[in-house]
Structures are given as C-alpha cells and as structure tokens.
C-alpha cells in the first residue's frame, strides 16, 4: 500500500463535496419561514454542560461569532443575537433529506463529517456540461434553498472534503495530490488534538506529512491519521456508500369523476389496499398504521387513519378496520383522488393463510376496539416486581405487549382504590366498628397485620406516611375490607381495597 500512488483508486473517479457550514441555522430559518434573515442568528445546544453555539448564520459569523463559542460570550459580542435551541434529531432528518435532494446530481450520495455531502460524480459531469458547469449548478441549487454551500471537486473523497472546507474549487483530474500538498493538516478529517500535535512538530502541511517515514507517523499518531492521509491522496480507496432507500408503501388512485358515496370510496380503497398489501408482502412487512387521504374537489383533504394491534397485510382485514372511519369522512362536493400510505410497518413473516387462529381473532378484536376507543384504552395487566400493592402490577397497552402470567402471592383485594380514611378510626387498635362510604360496618373477624414498608428508592407521595400494617377485616355486614394503619404523623386507619 505504501507509496502506491493514486493507482488504488479507480481511474477517472471524481468526487464532489458540498460543505454546508451554516446548515443547522439556515435550515431552521428556512423552516421558520424567514430565510436569509439579515440579523445574526444561531442555534445553541448543550456541549459538555455548557450552552454553546452549535451553528451560526452567515450574518452571525460576520458579527464575529463561531460555533463552539459559549452562549454567554456570544451574547456579549453580539447583544441582538437571536438563538434557538438545538434539535439534533431534526438535524439528522434534514441531512438525510438533503442527501436525497442531491441525488439529482449523482446516484451515489453519502454523508461525511461536519455536515458535508459527498457525491461520486464519475461519468456524471458531462450531463451537466462539464465539471465547472456542474459546480455552478450545485451552487445555484443550494442558493435556491438559501443554504451557504462550499464546493470542492477532486479525485478522492478526502481531497474533495479538504477543498470544500478550506479552499473551495476544483482540483483537475490527476492533480489532487499537488493541490493538497500545500494545504494544512487540518484538512485531513483527523482529530483536533492530532492536528495540534502535528503543528507543534512543525508538520503544518499535508505535503510535509506525506514526506516523512510512514512507520514513525503510524507509531506516533496512530493508524487513523495514516489512513486519512492515504485516503486524501488516493492511496487507499474510500467508496461512498449511499443510504439505501427505504421502501415506501403507498398507492394513489386518481378518479375520472368525483365520488361521494361511502360504497364508492370503499371500492377505491379496496384497489389501493390490494396494491399496498402486495408491496408489503414482497418486502415481508406488515402495516401497523395506515392513512387514507381523500382529496376533495375543493382541494381540502379528508383523512382516515387506522392502527393495528399486530402487523398485518390482509386486505380484507384492513378494509374492515377502515369501514367505520370512512363512513365518518366528509366528502363535500366529491372526492377526486385517494391515497393510501402505510405510515408504520414492521417485519412480518409469511404464514399460512386461510386458517384463522384464535389469537388472530383476539388481535383483530384489539385492533377494532383500539380504533374505536384509542389503543391506549385497551390494556392488559403485567406483573411488576414490587411488594407495594398498587405497584405490583403495571398496565400496558394490549397492542404492544404480550400476556404474562402472574405468580401466586399473598391474598390481595379484587378491587383496589386510592386509600380512603376510615370514618372514626383513631386508636392504635383495630376499631370494632367504623364508617366507610357513608355506611356503618361492624368487625366480625380480622386477620393481620401484614407489614409493608415503603420503597425508599421510590419517593411515592402516598407512602410518605411510612410503614403500613395491613389487615383483612370481615365485616358482619358482608364485605371483606383491606384496611391499613399508618403511624405517622399520627395513628390513622385507611381502607384501600375490597376483597371477594
């Protein structure tokens, strides 16, 4: 590998890098509807417990601000700075969207560090009238999105990245090495600490670094530094692996005449379901959440959504779930087109069809109930490892949980409620008779106490009264009550449950 020159890369390979130095700030401005805001604007986020600028707009940069600065410093320099909190997850979405957008220039689009898009444009440039024309078009397209872009074009991915970040321009084919020779080592995509150490040794340019003995370089600065150097100079290949497009399950039906009857919409839906379900079957996916959007003649949208307790792709079953929702849609003056999209899908293995198992019927029922009253309202019990009676179980949405058996334990009430104070229980001893829910009870017999201590690691306001002594009380009137006594701040009696 050593000194093998540019032969390791595919001859004629050309890589375009688009560096977007103000991406987060500019994307947010665009999202908020005032792109190209002349006032200084920045995105602030927490970096190592300090509030720092993450991204600044060109105007803010002109005012002397830069990413990495603490927000307090930035405010001192530029008092009229407008900031917004960082949203890293949105940033990732933006980057992926931009990568898809860049596919208009080349099918091979990848992402590199510091908000940089890398495009393998080998064999693409002539379609745009040559490399210079392509760069101009990319720049114009970015300007159209109100994004500041710096563009570098070279034989290698590392070289293009370096040019884009430090000296935007085009390195002619075969000249990448010569162009990179005079660039600072910071252009190599290596750690800031390594850059500093190299500079301290007087190795300021890539050319100087390339000339020293490789073994020593690797020993002092690690293989990563060497690898980055080779990648930039083209001695080591660095392919661009584009994001695999996620399959999208959607179908559209445009109608020659507007329709308004529920029956007609259902007929259209059936055709869409058939297509979407066939797509799902091909990818071994099942839908969890589907949306049917009807575009009306007056260009308003009406939509109906369904969710499923288990992923499914049986058109008839999905149709049954849609039936009620479609009936509620307002067709207005008629519906022009229908669109069905599977918003959430999950892997679903093919299984034998035609035989409806019992569990499938239960899942269907959960789906139907969930679509009627909301999936959060269809639940099941799950055991929880706690000796606190009200925390010994949890309630989970039935659509997203599996049944779990409960271990046998101590006798617990069938009905549990928030503790209610006993009408006239103040003494330390179990009262002989008491008042509860406006009814007088006489104690027939009692078993207990069962002492339950609060969980000290879990601050539950209801348990701040400390230890509880629980008693099962059989009243002469019939009901079996679950009583307890607390000692703090004074002795008090409470009812928490009703046995069977």
């Amino acid at each position, binding site marked *: 590998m050593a000194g093998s020159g540019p032969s390791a890369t595919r001859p004629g390979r050309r890589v375009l890098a688009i560096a977007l130095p103000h991406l987060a700030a500019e994307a947010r401005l665009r999202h908020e509807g005032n792109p190209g805001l002349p006032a200084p604007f920045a995105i602030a986020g927490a970096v190592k417990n300090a509030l720092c600028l993450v991204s600044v707009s060109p105007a803010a940069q002109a005012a002397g601000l830069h990413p990495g600065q603490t927000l307090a410093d930035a405010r001192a320099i530029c008092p009229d700075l407008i900031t917004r909190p960082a949203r890293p997850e949105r940033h990732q979405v933006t980057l992926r969207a931009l990568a898809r957008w860049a596919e208009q220039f080349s099918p091979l689009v990848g992402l590199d560090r510091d908000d940089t898009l890398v495009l393998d444009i080998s064999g693409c440039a002539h379609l745009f009238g040559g490399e210079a024309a392509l760069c101009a078009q990319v720049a114009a397209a970015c300007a159209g999105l109100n994004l500041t872009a710096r563009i570098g074009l070279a034989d290698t991915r590392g070289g293009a990245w370096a040019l884009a970040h430090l000296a935007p321009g085009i390195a002619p084919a075969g000249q990448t090495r010569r162009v990179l020779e005079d660039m600072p080592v910071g252009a190599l995509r290596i750690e800031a600490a390594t850059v500093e150490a190299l500079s301290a040794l007087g190795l300021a340019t890539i050319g100087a670094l390339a000339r020293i003995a490789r073994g020593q370089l690797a020993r002092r600065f690690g293989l990563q530094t060497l690898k980055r150097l080779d990648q930039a100079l083209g001695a080591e290949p660095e392919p661009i692996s584009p994001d695999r497009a996620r399959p999208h399950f959607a179908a559209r039906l445009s109608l020659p005449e507007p329709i308004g009857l529920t029956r007609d919409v259902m007929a259209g839906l059936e055709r869409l379901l058939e297509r979407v379900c066939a797509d799902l079957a091909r990818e071994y996916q099942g839908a969890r959440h589907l949306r049917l959007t009807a575009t009306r003649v007056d260009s308003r949208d009406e939509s109906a959504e369904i969710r499923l307790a288990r992923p499914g792709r049986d058109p008839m079953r999905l149709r049954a779930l849609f039936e009620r929702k479609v009936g509620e849609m307002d067709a207005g003056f008629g519906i022009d087109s229908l669109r069905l999209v599977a918003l959430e899908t999950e892997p679903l293995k093919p299984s034998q069809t035609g035989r409806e198992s*019992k569990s499938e019927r239960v899942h269907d*029922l959960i789906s139907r109930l969930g679509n009627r009253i909301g999936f959060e309202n269809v639940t099941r*019990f799950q055991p929880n490892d706690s000796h606190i009676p009200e925390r010994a179980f949890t309630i989970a949405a039935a659509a997203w949980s599996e049944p779990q058996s409960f271990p046998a334990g101590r006798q617990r009430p*069938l009905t549990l409620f928030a503790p209610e104070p006993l009408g006239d229980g103040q003494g330390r001893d179990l009262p002989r008779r008491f008042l509860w829910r406006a009814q007088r009870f006489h104690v027939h*017999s009692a078993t207990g106490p069962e002492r339950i201590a609060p969980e000290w690691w879990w601050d539950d306001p209801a348990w701040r009264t400390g230890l509880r002594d629980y008693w099962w009380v059989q009243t002469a009137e019939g009901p079996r009550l679950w009583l307890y006594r607390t000692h703090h701040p004074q002795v008090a009696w409470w009812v928490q449950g009703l*046995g069977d």
Partner: protein
Amino acid sequence: MLDMSGHSIDLTQWLTQARVHEAMGPGARSFAARLAGQLEGPVLWLTQAGGRDRLCPQGLVPHLDPARVILAHPPDRLGLLQAMEEVLRSGAAPLAVAEVAHAPDLTESRRLQLAAATGKGRGLCLIGEARTNAAETRWTCAPLPGEQESPRQKWVLVKNKRGTLGQWEVA
C-alpha cells in the same frame, strides 16, 4: 325458588352461551371473576375510563390468570355499550364483562343479545340497579361473613328467562 345452599354450582350451565346476563350487588365482580375462572380463553373486561374502583390483578389470581384479561376503558356509557357490542359480535372472547352501573334499557340489551347470538360468546353486565330489559338471567351477589380463608358468597338468581330461580351459598 330452589334453595341450593351448600351445593356446588357450575356457572357455565346457568349462564348460557350466546346470551347476555346480568349481575348486581356488592359481590358482582367476584361473581364475574369466578365465572371467568370456569371458562377458558381471553376475557374482555370493560370499565368506563376514570373510575374509582380499579380491578387488581393479584385479587383475580385465586380465580383465573390475570394474563387472560384484556381491559378496555371506553370514555362514556354509550361508548362502553358500543364496545361491548363489538366484542360480543366478534366472538373472539368466550366472556365479555361490562361494568355499566346504569343498566342497559330494553333496546340496548336487545342489541347486546343479538351481538352475543352472532359471536356465540357470553356477555355479563355488572349493573347497579335492575331495569326491565332483555337480560337472560339476573343475579344478586353479596359476600357473607365467614372464615377468612374461605370467603362465602350468596348468589340469588332473581330472573331466569328459561328455567327456575334459585339461591346458592358458595365458598
């Protein structure tokens, strides 16, 4: 009226399949749990959202595995009856329990009966007070004072469309 105190009772015989029944009184929940314990398969338990008296799974353990229970919490009484009808019609659960304090009226209970006949499951409404309606049987359930280890229940069959009335004391 038959006095069957001391005899064991097979609830599945009295609460016939494909019909909707009613239970009331302070022991109604316990009655439903025992009936569920004598059946197999999932049990749908419908209660109105935001109620004070919640079902505790550990209390169900002596009668049935709480894993079999699926709870549904419709927002209001009408939603609960609609959901009950849906459950009964699907027939996916051999027993559906609806806690509906204000008992269904004649039209409502007739709808439930038709749904149950379609789905071939059992419906049980836990009601507060009896109203004239199409329920197949109606039971009044109350706990009786007894030993702690074997709580006793008194069940009185107060309405039976096709059969005798009776009362049971069960352990």
